[in-house]
Structures are given as structure tokens and as C-alpha cells.
């Protein structure tokens, strides 16, 4: 019964959201079936569609895991958006400063000299550490503020999102942009900091597809988070804090410590988006690159029932939507890719208000009426 229910409600929520989206598409004068065929059709074509879908899923697995882990400790991390920005910028910063990149202005004069030019074996790990640790710090701050002062992590993470965006934009604009570049982006990182694209290993996959090794890293993180949460004492304490903080405290768990640990790991996971974005894809920090990955992470975690396996499945679904938004925009009369955001929002709404479906289902005898 339990597994059935775990799968049932997310599925119903998704279906209900598609019904709502379908009604909207009808209202604006298009055929929902045609739109949905486009939405899903392009995502599964081999190899381009699949490659892009897995690429889009990568950041969502990281942010979904980040939110899920915090959720397990009873915390809502809506700051993944800010954490992934600082993590990405940190990766780019190391990639430039330790990757031997000279930034020159239009006249060819050097405006920024690198600190070092490290070999790949040192540079790549350093970039990883930068993304992970800076993300961890950015997540840890609201954790400490909650543990020490009791201030709510939701408000603090919202505020830190804006601060992160402003900080990264400042450093990009004033220190690491190539002078005269009209685009708000940093110089390119050293080539030693690039990670390999999977196209090299999958025979028929063209090299322009940005799917890279960080997708495998994301899967590895899912496994590690699973082992941590369900197979270690620390994970047990973290979950105990989430289930019943006062009981956990009584049982000898330091709730304050757990809050800080959970937010720090959560921030680290979100920061790893930078590995995909900067080291694997653009090879530079691009201001405002995140397509709401942090917020979609909340949807991914909720829909995935805060379980690593669920997170992978939910991230794939949202990646399909993201990929499919493009042909829908191009090949329907009135439907724009904004339908994707509408579907996402509706899915979260239905997942959150699960009780909405629980009523009728227990009435029809499909579920035992349970205490909510």
C-alpha cells in the first residue's frame, strides 16, 4: 500500500496538471494533443533528443537532491537558486585565476593576470572543490542563522538568492568580463578545467550535444545521498530531526547541529550545478544562466517524494518538458514555451495539496482513510 501511494499521488498530480494545461491550450485555440505530442516527441529522439534531455536533467538532479535532503531534515531550502549561482561563479573564478587565463582589453593590454596555470590533475579538482564548498557556505549561512538565532530559513534563503545574483553579477561586470564584451559573461576558463562531453564515448552522439560527465556525477550523488540518509548514523540523526525534532533532541541528537549540517550539504549539492554549467557546458560564467533550476528543484524533490530515485525520475520529467517547450513554441499557432512553467507550477500545486485527491480516493475505497 505504501509504495502504491508513493507512486499514485505524484502520478495523479502530473496527470491533473496536464489536464489543466490542456484546458488552457484549448482556450487559446490550439489542439492539446498536438501540443503534448510535440512536447514529448522531441525529447525521446535518439540521439539528439535524449542527449539534450539528460543534459537538462543534470542541474535538476543536483537541485532536486539539495532540496530533498534539506526536506528530510524538516527544512525548506528555497535558496538552491542562489547556491548554484555562487557555486558556478566560484568554479569559473578558479578556472580563470588558476587556469592561466589572461584577460585583455580591446587594445591588447592585460587587465587581469591569472594567479597560476595549473595542470589538469590539480585544476579540475580545485574547480570541483570551489563549486561545492562555496555552495556549501551559501547554504550553511541560513543554517547557522536558524540554529543560532532561530530566524526562518525560508526568508533568509530568499534574501540570499538576491544577494548571490547581485554579487556574481558585480564580479562578472567589474572584474572578469572581457572589456567591450556586450554580453554579461566572464572570460573563458582555462582549457584544463573543461570536463569531457559524453558524445566522445557514445558512438552516434554528435559532439555539439552538451551532455557531459557531470550527468554521471549527478547519478553518483543520488547514490551517495541515499547511502548517507539511510545507511549511516548521521543520516539517521538528520532524518530523526526532520520527523520529530523534540524527540530527536530528547534522544541525544543536537538539532541545531543537524540543521547546519543539512543546509551545508544541501548547498554543496546545489553548488555542483556549476560543475555542469561552467566546466561541462559553457566554459564560462554566464550572468543569469539559471532557468529557475533552484525553484524547479523544489518541484523535483516534492514530486520525487524526497527520495534520490524519485528525484532522478522527476528531474527527467521536467527535463523532457524543458526540452519539449522549444518545438511547442515553434510548431503550434498560439502556444508558447511558457506552457512549461505553467505545467510545472500546477504540478507542484497539486503535489502540495495532495489532500485534494485523497478525499475522493478514500471515498471510492481505493485508499484506507488515513490521518493527515
Amino acid at each position: 500500500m505504501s509504495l502504491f501511494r508513493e507512486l499514485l499521488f505524484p502520478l495523479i498530480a502530473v496527470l491533473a496538471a496536464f489536464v489543466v494545461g490542456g484546458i488552457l491550450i484549448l482556450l487559446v485555440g490550439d489542439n492539446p494533443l498536438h501540443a503534448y505530442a510535440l512536447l514529448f516527441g522531441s525529447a525521446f529522439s535518439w540521439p539528439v533528443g535524449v542527449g539534450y534531455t539528460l543534459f537538462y536533467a543534470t542541474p535538476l538532479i543536483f537541485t532536486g537532491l539539495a532540496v530533498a535532503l534539506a526536506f528530510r531534515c524538516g527544512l525548506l531550502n528555497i535558496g538552491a537558486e542562489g547556491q548554484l549561482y555562487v557555486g558556478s561563479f566560484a568554479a569559473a573564478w578558479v578556472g580563470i585565476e588558476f587556469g592561466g587565463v589572461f584577460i585583455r582589453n580591446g587594445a591588447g593590454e592585460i587587465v587581469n593576470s591569472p594567479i597560476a596555470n595549473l595542470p589538469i590533475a590539480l585544476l579540475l579538482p580545485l574547480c570541483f572543490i570551489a563549486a561545492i564548498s562555496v555552495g556549501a557556505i551559501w547554504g550553511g549561512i541560513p543554517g547557522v542563522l536558524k540554529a543560532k538565532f532561530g530566524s526562518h530559513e525560508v526568508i533568509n534563503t530568499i534574501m540570499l538568492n538576491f544577494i548571490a545574483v547581485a554579487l556574481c553579477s558585480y564580479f562578472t561586470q567589474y572584474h572578469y568580463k572581457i572589456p567591450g564584451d556586450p554580453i554579461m559573461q566572464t572570460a573563458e576558463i582555462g582549457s584544463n578545467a573543461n570536463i569531457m562531453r559524453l558524445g566522445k564515448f557514445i558512438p552516434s552522439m554528435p559532439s555539439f550535444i552538451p551532455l557531459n560527465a557531470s550527468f554521471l556525477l549527478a547519478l553518483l550523488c543520488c547514490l551517495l545521498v541515499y547511502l548517507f540518509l539511510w545507511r549511516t548514523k548521521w543520516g539517521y540523526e538528520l532524518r530523526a530531526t526532520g520527523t520529530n525534532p523534540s524527540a530527536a533532541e530528547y534522544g541525544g541528537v543536537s538539532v541545531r547541529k543537524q540543521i547546519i549540517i543539512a543546509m551545508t550539504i544541501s548547498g554543496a549539492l546545489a553548488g555542483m550545478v556549476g560543475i555542469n554549467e561552467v566546466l561541462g557546458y559553457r566554459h564560462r560564467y554566464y550572468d543569469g544562466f539559471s532557468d529557475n533550476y533552484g525553484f524547479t528543484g523544489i518541484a523535483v524533490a516534492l514530486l520525487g517524494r524526497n527520495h534520490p530515485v524519485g528525484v532522478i525520475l522527476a528531474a527527467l520529467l521536467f527535463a523532457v518538458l524543458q526540452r519539449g517547450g522549444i518545438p511547442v513554441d515553434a510548431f503550434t499557432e498560439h502556444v508558447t514555451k511558457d506552457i512549461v512553467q505553467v505545467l510545472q507550477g500546477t504540478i507542484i500545486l497539486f503535489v502540495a495539496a495532495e489532500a485534494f485527491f485523497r478525499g475522493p480516493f478514500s471515498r471510492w475505497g481505493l485508499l484506507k482513510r488515513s490521518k493527515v
Partner: protein
Amino acid sequence: MADIFTIALIWSTIRLSTPLVLAALGGLFSERSGVINIALEGMMLAGAFTAAAVTHAAGNPLVGLLAGMGAGLLIAAIHAVACIRYRADQVVTGTAINILMIGLPPFLSGAFFLSSGSTPQIPREHLIPWTPIVIAFILVPLTWYVLYKTPFGLRLRSVGENPEAADAAGVRVAKMRYAGVLLSGILAGIGGAYLSIGQSSLFTRNMTSGRGFIALAALIFGKWRPVQTMLACLLFGFTEAVTIQMQGVVKLPSGEDIPIQFIQMVPYVLTIVVLAGFIGSSRPPKALGMPYEKER
């Protein structure tokens, strides 16, 4: 430096504060009743889009303003039903509404106006640059009066502080919370409408650009009280006005521009500092965020 502190700056501060005051007062009604409202951003977007679209269609900004209020109300109703009736997580529901409202207005304008997310330009004579400002600043004393001097206000505050006691005293908790959330939708709707048919002359994609969250910050900075919240909105509006005025005008001694990013951060940093209790303390209503289930 002195020449930028002019009448123009004060005037610009008032204009930029208006949407914040409206949304923050809305948030105040919702949060004092015990329902977290991080969906102010989404409610403002609903108001902004609807007001612009209806003003364009009807040729009358007051009809547009009413429609904007209606749209805010509708979105608030979704939040209210999910949080109060179905006891959904209030923050998650708010996030869902925000994501939904990033997509829905451009989706609709793309379909109706064949644009890439904005509504058609509204002629100058159909704009209302004054009315929302007047409404906003009249609402401040009015909110104070309603909250502290009327039975409605007392009940609203009581269900946000101690719903069990309020229930025992015969207050209908759910009804008061519905009232609080729906009011927040109406007010945030006016705030959004002001952006599209007051300050500018059309709706553009994501035109609130975080103002709903700044309003939320002002509400916390103002300790969930009407007058202090207004002062916080004025402060945040002032920082925005200064940012706009300083851009390219005021230089550092070295001759470089002052990075606006640091001024933009001010409201957010201040909110974190205040919430942590470094400057006075800001205490939320006791039952904020907790669904209430009547004991049977």
C-alpha cells in the same frame, strides 16, 4: 553628492515605494492571520498582466484596476484553498504560484496579442499614475485602524497568534484566514496593476522583477506592523531611487561608477540582519505557517 537629494528623488522614492507598500500591506493581512505568503510576487504579476490586458481591451483604466484586483483575488483564492482547506505547505504552495505566474501571463499574452510575452501599449490618457499611490498611502492608517481598533482586526491577529484560544472564544479560524489571504491578493493585485498601468504603459514578462519579495522583506523589516512596514517600503524604495539616480552620474573618487549591485543588495542584507535580531528583534506571528485543524 548633495545635488542628487532633490525633490525628484523624493518623488521617485514615493513612486517606487507604492507597489511595495500595497503588496506588503497585503502580506501583512495574510501573515497576521497565520498564513505565510511568499506568493506576493505571483499575485502582483497576475494583477499587472490583467490590469494591462483589460485596460487595453476596455479602454478604461479603472475597469483595468478592478480586473487586476480580481486577478490577485483569484490567485489568492488558490493559495487560500490549498493552505487552509487542504493544509498544503504554505511555502511550497507559494512557490508553485510564483512559478505558475512566471509562465501564465506571457502564455496568455502570447496567445491573445501574438507577442513574445507583453501586452500592447496603452495610450497615455488611459493610465492611472496617481490613484494607486493615493490608495497605498491611505491604506496604511486604514490598515492600522482595522488591525488594532476593530473586532475584525482583533480576530485576525488572534488566529495568527493562538488559533486554539481564538477557536475556543468562538472565532472561526478558517474564515478569518480566508479573509486575510484574499485581502492580500486584492492588495498585491493593485500593486501589480500600478506597475503596468501606472508606472509604465504595458505588461512585460516578469515585470515585477522581485518586488513581491522586497515587499515581503519590508514586511519582516517592519515587524509585521503597518506603519513600520510602510517606513521599510519607503527605505527600500529610496535605495532603488538612489540606484537609478546614481547610475552613471555619481562616480567614485577613482572615476569609476559605483557598482549598483551593492545598493541593490541593501534591502536583502538588512532583512537578514533584522531577522537574526541584530537590530531590534522581528518576531513573526506565533502560529505563522501552521495549518489549523479543529479538534473534534
